[in-house]
């Protein structure tokens, strides 16, 4: 306890509580932050806008949120830009779930069906459309695309009979499969290629003034990423279970397993130029990219590189 | 034959904690065309008695027979004028006085004209499009009287109908109501605080005593007086005599409490 006094306090805000962010919870639960001398306090601030607002108004020091939010903010011009400095997930986290069991899925099966997608303007929706287009499907003509439902209610809508296919996060996808409501037939993460999907970011001024904290923070994250990489899905699930009290262990395990198997968890915190470009391409494709932003200006891999050496 | 028979009526108000005996063993009869008054100290149950006759309250025990039928709520033979005017503030005076006609489905051109002429007689034809809030207390009371008379009830129950009027208007109205009722051979029960008014208008006066209300005494107004109109009565010799008797009686009643 006396050591806790000397710990440096860091406040982070996550955009949602998700198994997708497993390494973060590992870092918290396994004490990696404390080993680095950091006392990390985590709040959930649902919605990228609110997380980002909290970051901009200094309510939190570090935000865990999709990189696209930083692009939206930085494109509007600011004196103290939001800098991406440590990547947590590197693929999309959603899965394509079919109502019927399909043994040999091909993407052209989506044609002329009803597809329940994620809400417009968010990363899942953009990736969703990007992947469809990649497979030669025009999302607005070849199928009926429903994009008008709130994130929390998409699963309910599908469960109550809307749509033939749905784009879902874990653990909803696993729950559906377990309950026989739907079947995971493809992964948008695999299809999208690597993107900076969820990234720790902070204001430039924070990174300049608190270099040491940023470095320690990144190191703890890196430790957790390696730990997740090395351990079995069961071990990871057990480690993060305190953060998911009301989810059964087998669901957590199967979710982690799925993310692990498709390399959704980044192996290290480095966000490279290709990933950044890929993200902007996807946004551009969806018509949501306000302007192309320079990798050098808005990504800082200094700390990530320092800790991985 | 009796038009109205009240037989051994008692009434008790109950609340969860308390019970108040408002009336005890009241019996009285009224013939058709008679006019009777009820006087008595405040709180002796006069309003309660009228409400029972109107069928609005079921007495705890006892029976009330009106025109050979036990009274009930849907009866359309009585017109009841409450102690306060209770004109509907969101209705014009005209709508207010037509209310009874409307409710009893009697609203025809003929009844309308009749009611409006009644309003005129009472001196208020010029306010028919106004709202009650624009009238003074006395004017409102007169409108309430017209509303009660409009449906042409066989039995009139009047709870202090003239209390808010200035002396002058009061006398005029007493005269008007008295003559109207006599002319159409109506029966009426009047509650009042004004001994003079009771003498001037009624054939018989019931004096109620308090705690609980029972009939303390009945005064019959002498035949000679009955032939006069209320205005004339007040100037007669016998009026003063009767007044003094009733007053003494009331006084001793108060003394007893």
């Amino acid at each position, binding site marked *: 306890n006396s050591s806790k006094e000397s710990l440096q306090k860091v406040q982070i805000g996550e955009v949602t509580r998700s198994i997708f962010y497993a390494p973060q919870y590992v870092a918290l639960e396994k004490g990696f932050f404390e080993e680095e001398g950091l006392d990390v306090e985590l709040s959930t601030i649902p*919605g990228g806008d609110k997380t980002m607002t909290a970051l901009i108004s200094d309510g939190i020091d570090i935000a865990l949120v999709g990189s696209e939010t930083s692009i939206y903010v930085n494109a509007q011009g600011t004196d103290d830009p939001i800098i991406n400095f440590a990547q947590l997930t590197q693929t999309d986290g959603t899965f394509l779930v079919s109502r019927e069991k399909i043994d040999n899925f091909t993407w052209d099966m989506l044609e002329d069906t009803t597809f329940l997608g994620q809400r417009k303007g968010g990363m899942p929706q953009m990736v969703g459309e990007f992947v469809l287009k990649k497979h030669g499907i025009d999302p607005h003509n070849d199928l009926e695309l429903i994009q008008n439902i709130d994130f929390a209610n998409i699963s*309910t809508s599908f469960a109550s009979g*809307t749509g033939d296919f749905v784009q879902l996060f874990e653990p909803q996808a696993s729950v559906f499969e377990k309950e026989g409501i739907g079947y995971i037939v493809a992964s948008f993460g695999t299809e999208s290629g690597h993107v900076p999907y969820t990234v720790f970011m902070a204001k430039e001024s924070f990174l300049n003034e608190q270099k040491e904290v940023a470095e320690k923070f990144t190191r703890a994250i890196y430790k957790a990423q390696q730990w997740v990489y090395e351990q079995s899905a069961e071990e990871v699930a057990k480690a993060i279970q305190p953060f998911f009290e009301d989810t059964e262990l087998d669901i957590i395990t199967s979710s982690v397993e799925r993310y692990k198997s498709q390399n959704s968890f980044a192996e290290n915190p480095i966000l490279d130029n290709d990933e950044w470009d890929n993200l902007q391409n996807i946004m551009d494709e969806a018509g949501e990219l306000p302007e192309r932003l320079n990798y050098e200006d808005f990504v800082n891999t200094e700390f990530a590189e320092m800790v991985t050496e | 034959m009796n038009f109205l028979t009240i037989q051994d009526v008692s009434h008790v108000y109950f609340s969860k904690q308390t019970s108040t005996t408002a009336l005890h063993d009241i019996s009285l009869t009224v013939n058709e065309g008679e006019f009777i008054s009820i006087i008595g100290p405040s709180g002796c149950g006069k309003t309660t008695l009228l409400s029972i006759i109107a069928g609005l309250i079921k007495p705890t025990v006892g029976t009330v027979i009106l025109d050979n039928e036990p009274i009930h709520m849907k009866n359309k033979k*009585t017109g009841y004028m409450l102690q306060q005017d209770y004109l509907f503030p*969101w209705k014009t005076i005209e709508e207010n006085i037509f209310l009874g006609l409307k*409710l*009893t489905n009697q609203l025809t051109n003929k009844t309308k004209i009749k009611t409006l002429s009644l309003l005129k007689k009472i001196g208020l034809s010029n306010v028919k499009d106004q709202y009650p809030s624009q009238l003074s207390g006395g004017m409102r009371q007169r409108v309430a009287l017209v509303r009660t008379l409009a449906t042409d009830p066989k039995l009139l129950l009047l709870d202090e109908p003239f209390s808010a009027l200035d002396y002058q208007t009061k006398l005029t109205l007493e005269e008007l109501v008295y003559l109207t009722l006599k002319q159409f051979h109506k029966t009426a029960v009047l509650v009042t605080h004004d001994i003079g008014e009771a003498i001037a208008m009624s054939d018989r006066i019931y004096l109620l005593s308090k705690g609980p209300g029972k009939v303390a005494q009945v005064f019959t107004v002498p035949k000679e007086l009955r032939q006069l109109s209320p205005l004339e009565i007040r100037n007669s010799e016998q009026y003063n005599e009767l007044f003094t008797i009733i007053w003494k009686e009331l006084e001793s009643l108060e003394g007893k409490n």
Partner: protein
Amino acid sequence: MKEKINVPLLHQQYRNQLRKEKRWVLFFQILIFLAFFLFWQVASHFKWIDPLIFSSPITIWNLFLDKVSDGSLFPHIWTTVFETFLGFIIGTLGGTIFAAILWWSNTLSKIFGPYLVILNAMPKVALGPILIVALGPNMTSIVAMGVLVTIIITTIVIYSSFREVDPNYVKVLQSFGATKFQCFKEAILPSSFPTIISTLKVNVGLSWVGVIVGEYLVSKQGLGYLIIYGFQVFNFTLVLLSLLVIAVFATIMYKLVEVIEQKLLKNG
């Protein structure tokens, strides 16, 4: 010297004074309005407040002009106004009808009293999934959310106003042999009009809130959709523009209710 009183002149003076006061009130209202927007503009310009989050009046105005000139704002407005209007009407009428039923049967009202309380305290927003399951992810759900938010509170408030009606009015009607329905129509309902109107005013606000929340849950179009989309792409100018548009239309709707009020309560 004895003063002579000139009534028409005094009346004129009185009316002038009324008019003058009205002008002053208007002046201050406009002053506050302008001061608010001016301060906002200046604060945003000098970065006392973060222009990213708070945008600035001029930016919002430009966005407004853009969206008006390309016609992309109107469909959103009409959608939401339509939904709100529906939600408002159904919620208010429904609430009044429920209140009437409760008034009708004393036993029913005793039985359902506690349940109303519980329903009232339920965060309706959390009932979204149930709505979507029941009504499907479409406009019906949005309107239903608008109704849900208003109907319970309307029922409670109007029922309590029904109960407060002076029983002597009913007595008058009963003395004419009126039926229970006539008592309701002639006494209970009209004497509750002031309460109903003030509930209407409150409901204007609530139904906007309900519909916007409904649009958060599920929508392709509408001001609530714009807000959510604005949040999604961190375009707070869009969010604030939508909020201002909502404010304008909610005020218009409120004023309409006031006009109805003046018509109905002419004898105030």
